[in-house]
């Protein structure tokens, strides 16, 4: 009985903690941050895709397939870029599919292990 009374005390102390000041420009900051994040994601993917295209163009231009070492080097660079682009797109897709308004148990079940955690803002 004493413990429950004590918990009620804790609860009233919790309720009585100092109120935070609501940021005046809070909403605007959130909307701008969202735009910035989306823009950053888009520009990263555009830059990666363009680099990839330039490398493929260079590969064809110098006829890299005729030189074994050059071909391996260029293919490695292009391959790494393609993997990076695919990972970026997969992570964006994963984040977009996550519904943060689900109940906690279902949310945890749907959460793909390390990828989402890594790319969460």
């Amino acid at each position: 009985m004493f413990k429950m009374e004590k918990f009620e005390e804790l609860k009233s102390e919790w309720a009585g903690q100092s109120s935070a000041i609501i940021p005046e420009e809070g909403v605007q900051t959130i909307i701008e941050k969202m735009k910035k994040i989306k823009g950053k994601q888009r520009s990263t993917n555009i830059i990666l895709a363009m680099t990839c295209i330039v490398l493929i163009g260079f590969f064809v231009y110098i006829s890299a397939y005729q030189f074994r070492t050059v071909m391996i080097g260029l293919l490695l660079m292009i391959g790494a870029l393609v993997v990076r682009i695919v990972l970026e797109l997969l992570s964006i897709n994963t984040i977009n599919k996550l519904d943060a308004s689900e109940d906690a148990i279902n949310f945890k079940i749907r959460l793909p292990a390390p990828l989402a955690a890594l790319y969460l803002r």
Partner: protein
Amino acid sequence: MVFKSSFESVEVSMKQDKSYFEEVYRANYQRVIRICRGYVSGDEDLAKDLTQEVFIKVWESLASFRNESNIATWIYRITVNTCMLQFRKKKFFKQDNALQGLSNSEEENDTAQENQLNKMYQCVDKLTQDNKAIILLELEGLPQKEIAAVMGISHEAIRVRVHRIKTSLTKCVQNGKI
């Protein structure tokens, strides 16, 4: 003309959404930041960052809110899920911070209420992720039926768990052990 009017209607709807979001933001800011404080051992700056992350998710999902549940319950769900994820991301940073909080509270002689609140934060920090969410919602005064809806656990199970966590939290605040 058609383009102009549809463009205007989109613009009006965006403005309405923004003003609705502003309303939601102001009405729920305090309860969200209190829950976030519970996740970061009372660190005000981290709690503010976390609150901003929560409202980013609210802004992203506002269009899909279907009035099936109370908006406060819906925001509590987003808060719990976002805090859980951010906890994973800032795991190590948070642990350092929690330890810093412990040493600060030992060194400083805060007022009795602040001390009690600090102890509470440290005890909440020792709980598992699910138990932490449950007790923070209980401290917020959310009815157990709604806590069950936020957590996705049956009402009966929540009732039992709340009782257990209340006992161990009270014991921890009194003795420093869970």
